[in-house]
């Protein structure tokens, strides 16, 4: 159950090398939105576009492939994509919305569909929700402290950030690579992430991340009927190269291990929080 409901799981990457270039992993998110946009499945997608400061994402409604391409890559800081969910239907007039987000954002999306408080005309217009795996996120200033003070890389020189193999990696535009132990970054994590009980975006139509697949490839869970249809059409159209998840290293076992680690760790923290007071308890969202 830690991996959620899914109909299929595989290792995949975008067939288009152009999309893969500049994507975080296999370019799954960008390739799938680009296909859905051109096939008329979505009118646009809410993505993490470029913001004001270097590496600060801004929730952006992409209605062209160019805009999708400009939003490729993981920005390891908060991008409130759900903030645009009503704007997408209002100011942009989208009838078929695509949205990418972390597991917590997928939870927010599904809650908004089940209990549509204040999001008129939104719940029936979600055409494709792509979730990305997430262990934790950072506030912008937290990420900046890691990159500038720990990795000694100015934000404007940064080409890519990655977390993997127990390390935080910063790549510069000129090809230098810095790595620091992940544990140095923990204190910069967003506290709200520590009560999160989902690693692989269980509530998305399709969810994806790097863990489990070789470098340059992504692990993909196809979860809902909607996700299955669109993934199937895109695969048939040759948008993706696909491999059996059982045939790649490190495979699903690592995904499951990390999911268990995140969930049990955070569950422990939630229990711990419950004991902070005397005769009082802090709010707990889970019912």
């Amino acid at each position, binding site marked *: 159950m830690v991996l959620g409901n899914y109909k299929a799981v595989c290792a995949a990457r975008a067939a288009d090398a152009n999309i893969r270039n500049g994507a975080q992993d296999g370019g799954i998110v960008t390739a799938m939105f680009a296909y859905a946009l051109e096939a008329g499945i979505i009118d646009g997608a809410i993505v993490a576009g470029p913001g004001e400061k270097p590496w600060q994402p801004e929730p952006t409604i992409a209605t062209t492939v160019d805009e999708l391409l400009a939003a490729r890559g993981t920005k390891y800081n*908060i991008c*409130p994509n759900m903030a*645009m969910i009503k704007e997408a239907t209002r100011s942009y007039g989208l009838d078929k919305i695509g949205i990418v987000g972390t597991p917590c954002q997928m939870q927010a999306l599904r809650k*908004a569909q089940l*209990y549509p408080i*204040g999001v008129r005309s939104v719940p029936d217009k979600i055409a494709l929700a792509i979730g990305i795996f997430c262990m934790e996120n950072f506030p912008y200033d937290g990420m900046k402290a890691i990159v500038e003070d720990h990795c000694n890389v100015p934000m404007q020189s940064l080409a890519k950030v990655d977390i993997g193999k127990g390390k935080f990696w910063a790549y510069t535009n000129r090809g230098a690579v810095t790595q620091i132990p992940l544990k140095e970054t923990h204190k910069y994590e967003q506290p709200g992430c520590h009560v999160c009980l989902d690693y692989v975006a269980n509530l998305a139509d399709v969810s994806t991340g790097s863990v489990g697949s070789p470098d340059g490839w992504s692990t993909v869970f196809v979860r809902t009927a909607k996700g299955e249809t669109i993934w199937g059409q895109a695969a048939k159209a040759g948008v993706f190269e696909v491999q059996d998840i059982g045939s790649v290293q490190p495979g699903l076992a690592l995904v499951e291990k990390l999911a268990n680690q995140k969930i049990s760790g955070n569950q422990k923290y939630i229990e711990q929080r419950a004991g902070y007071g005397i005769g009082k308890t802090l709010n707990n969202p889970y019912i």
Partner: protein
Amino acid sequence: MGLGERLSKVFGSSQESKTPVNPTKVENSENKTKTEEKLVADKITIGHVHMSGCSGCVVSIADTFEGLFTLLDNYADLVYCLTLADVRDIPKMDVALVEGSVCINDHHSIEDIRKTRENATIVVALGGCASYGNITRFCRGGQWNQPGHEAFVPIGDLINVDVYLPGCAPTPEAIRNVCVMAYLLLKGNDDQKALATKYLEPLMKLPTLGTEACGCDLMTKIINHGLCMGCGTCCASCPVRAITMQSGKPNIERDMCIKCGACYTACPRSFISLELTAQFETILGAIDGAMNP
């Protein structure tokens, strides 16, 4: 089989073939060759009680378009509604949807809200004013015709309320979802009742948490409790755009806030059932099936 799945077996989901509620074969007398499936469900009775509100909530009920007819054809009889039904006195009913807060300077309003509580099995505070006072919190009287009407309280300050459905206005989709769930709670089988209870539980808990709401709840109940993760849902839910996202957290323009409570209720960190939400596909499919029998 999960609850949602069983529910969809009865209601039919958008993906599967649609099976109506309690399908009964009805012979069409004029055309014996054609057999049509008709919905013969046990209906519930609902009423719309108009206190001091702007009619935005009742417009939202009507804004479900054909959905309203589906609801009235198959699931509910509208037994009271000043704008849509010709009944003067508040009758007995299963569900009262109350719009607006109560003006305590008007004895009719006091009588009406009391009568609503006495005559309705379930009282739903429909919208921000009934739940939390909303814009009527800012009334200072002096309006033409009744300048002395200046003190307005959410209905929960006078009677026990069973369900809050906040929002200014509450969305047609939320009304639809809650109506289908209320129907299941009252007329469904055991599994459907269990699902509806799970769904309605948090909306039934809101009245026990008080009658005050403000954008500040995001600070005092979510951010200060270490729960905010910056998704931005609160920002999208605010009807007056009082919320912007700053440094990955909501920033509330406190003078703009009308105290409707939408942001806090919408926030995934105010309440969420992971068990229920995991079944979102079947539940949404079932609601869709119920509305398109």
